[in-house]
């Protein structure tokens, strides 16, 4: 067996937690319990988990507007996350951030980012700190097919090469940027070829396959840790839901999502593989599923009863360390 059982269990648990967390977010949003704009990442779990599973809390990730999965994969507490997403004062960011700005510095999660392309320059900074301080930590940014076209992202790629920063650029190519096709927004035929043009190793992989993604990330991460500089990995995947919760998705093909949920579900693909290989049993995974449902139920119940922030004390605090 090429993978430790613990590793496989952790991977599965993490992916499944993301899936159920996101599906529940949709429900809670529709039930009026979550305010604001919420972007869920179900369908893309394999990439988040493959990218983060080997990282320590000192390795830094930078995320996007679609950040829940990255948080969970990086080890953020789902209870504190749900509270944050519901705007409670006991949330990860005291309710000040919300879904689009959720962060957990203690876990090396440098924040979702509601500005497309906002993250990679910052992740360069985390990588620069690691390099300057000689910590051997690495940094990793999540990007989309759409954010790839933001100037800040391209600048960050070039700078990462120039300064040989330990920064892995992960591109989750889910085929869409809101309601615009990836291959419309990207003028080039291949994002990976474009990435390679920046002077870093670049690869395009099947992001629905956890194992393929994990192996590619492992090489890139190790390269970064060994001082070999940045890499770019484009992971092809599918967005199971709308751009935001509530998106009518008129731009998608007939049955596109239904079909994808059937045949392009990274969780199903994972389960099939590990069962076929005899690495894990369905029963084991079903048991994990149950645990997760309980955890999420609890996260939601706790969040729903968690205290709200108090404008008198919370509105004006945390702007500065001192002023």
């Amino acid at each position: 067996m090429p993978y430790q059982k613990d590793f496989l269990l952790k991977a599965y648990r993490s992916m499944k937690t993301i899936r159920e967390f996101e599906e529940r977010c949709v429900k809670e949003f529709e039930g009026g319990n979550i305010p604001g704009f919420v972007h869920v990442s179900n369908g893309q779990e394999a990439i988040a988990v493959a990218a983060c599973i080997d990282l320590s809390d000192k390795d830094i990730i930078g995320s996007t507007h679609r950040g829940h999965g990255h948080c969970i994969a990086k080890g953020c507490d789902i209870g504190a996350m749900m509270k944050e997403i519901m705007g409670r004062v006991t949330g990860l960011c005291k309710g000040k951030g919300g879904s689009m700005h959720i962060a957990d510095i203690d876990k090396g999660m440098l924040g979702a980012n509601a500005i497309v392309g906002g993250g990679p320059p910052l992740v360069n900074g985390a990588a620069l700190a690691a390099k300057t301080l000689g910590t051997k930590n690495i940094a990793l940014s999540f990007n989309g097919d759409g954010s790839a076209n933001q100037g800040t992202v391209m600048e960050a790629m070039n700078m990462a090469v120039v300064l040989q920063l330990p920064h892995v650029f992960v591109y989750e190519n889910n085929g869409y940027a809101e309601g615009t096709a990836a291959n419309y927004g990207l003028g080039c035929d291949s994002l990976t070829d474009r990435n390679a043009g920046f002077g870093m190793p670049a690869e395009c992989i099947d992001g629905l396959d956890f194992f393929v993604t994990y192996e590619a990330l492992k090489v890139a991460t190790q390269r970064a840790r060994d001082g070999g500089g940045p890499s770019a990995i484009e992971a092809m995947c599918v967005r199971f839901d709308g751009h935001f919760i509530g998106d009518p998705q008129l731009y998608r093909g007939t049955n596109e999502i239904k079909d994808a949920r059937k045949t392009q579900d990274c969780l199903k693909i994972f389960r099939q593989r590990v069962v076929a290989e005899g690495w894990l049993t369905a029963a084991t995974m079903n048991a994990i599923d149950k645990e997760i449902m309980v955890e999420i139920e609890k996260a939601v119940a706790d969040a729903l009863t968690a205290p709200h922030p108090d404008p008198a004390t919370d509105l004006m605090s945390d702007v500065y360390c001192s002023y």
Partner: protein
Amino acid sequence: MTNYSNDPKIAGKSSLKTIREAINDALRAEMRRDPTVIVLGEEVSGGAGCPGEDDAYGGVFGVTKGLMPEFGRERVIDTPISEAAIIGAAAGAANNGLRPVAELMFFDFIGVSFDQIFNQTAKFRYMFGGKSKTPLVIRATVGGGWRAGAQHSSMLHSIVTHIAGLKVVMPSNAYDAKGLMVQAIRDDDPIIFLEHKTMYDNTCEVPDEQYAIPFGEAAFPRHGTDVTIVAISNMVTRAIEAADILAKEGISCEVIDPRTVSPLDDEAILESVEVTGRLVVVDEGNPRCGLASDIAGIVAEKGFHSLIAPIRTVTAPHTPVPFAPELEDAYIPSVEKILAAVREVIGG
């Protein structure tokens, strides 16, 4: 939801329209009238390159819906997520015979496009010695209330008001929105047109015909003699609400909606303060170097002798926009805060 329009002059056919519809109206009719008017931005149509429906969004708030089916993708252009390139394309096109209406979706995205706005677009005419014009409209949503958090809820109009070469337009109702958009498209200078995202569904009577509202002319949704309240964008509704409450207490408020903050109708404000002697300025923007203190400063300089009480500004605090609803509600100036400010200047 306001149903007020400010000084509307309605002749001929009209109907109840939302701000969304009013702006859509203005865009559509101008595009019909003038083939050089184009619309560009992210998802202004939506569905580009996708297997499903075209015009899937018509802008994320639906303001440009229906334009692409009528005018085609050549004139309603979905773009990659590259705001600097969007503004640049619009400005360069404006210098070369088009009248582009570019959308920034959220005005918070000026961060990634600011150079093209303030160093290029705004300065062309001056740097080129008056030998160019840049008839460009940049549309964007501003403001809080959607629980969209710190990076999707800012006002930021004060920043562009600071920039010479830009005009800044902030309608508070559907009637004005249409007339100001028509003017914006026909105007030969670069315009920042800011739509408060909580107001899209607000309705009022809007004429069917096209009409242009000149820039730099304030509207007076309420006339009064005790206190002048200057409010902008969504704050106009709240100022009116406050004024109506105060009217019942015998306090007569003049509510002034500048409609454009650059140029600013400071004469209207100064004349009103001459009568009232008291000024309250209400703005959802942040306080430091913001529009509220700008107007306060102007009056303290040019209208000082009219003043009989301290000027009061009612603004958001010096913080980013918080996510949690309670915090955001406390962040945005409320009717209560306006009432308190007016009572203070009446008292003191």
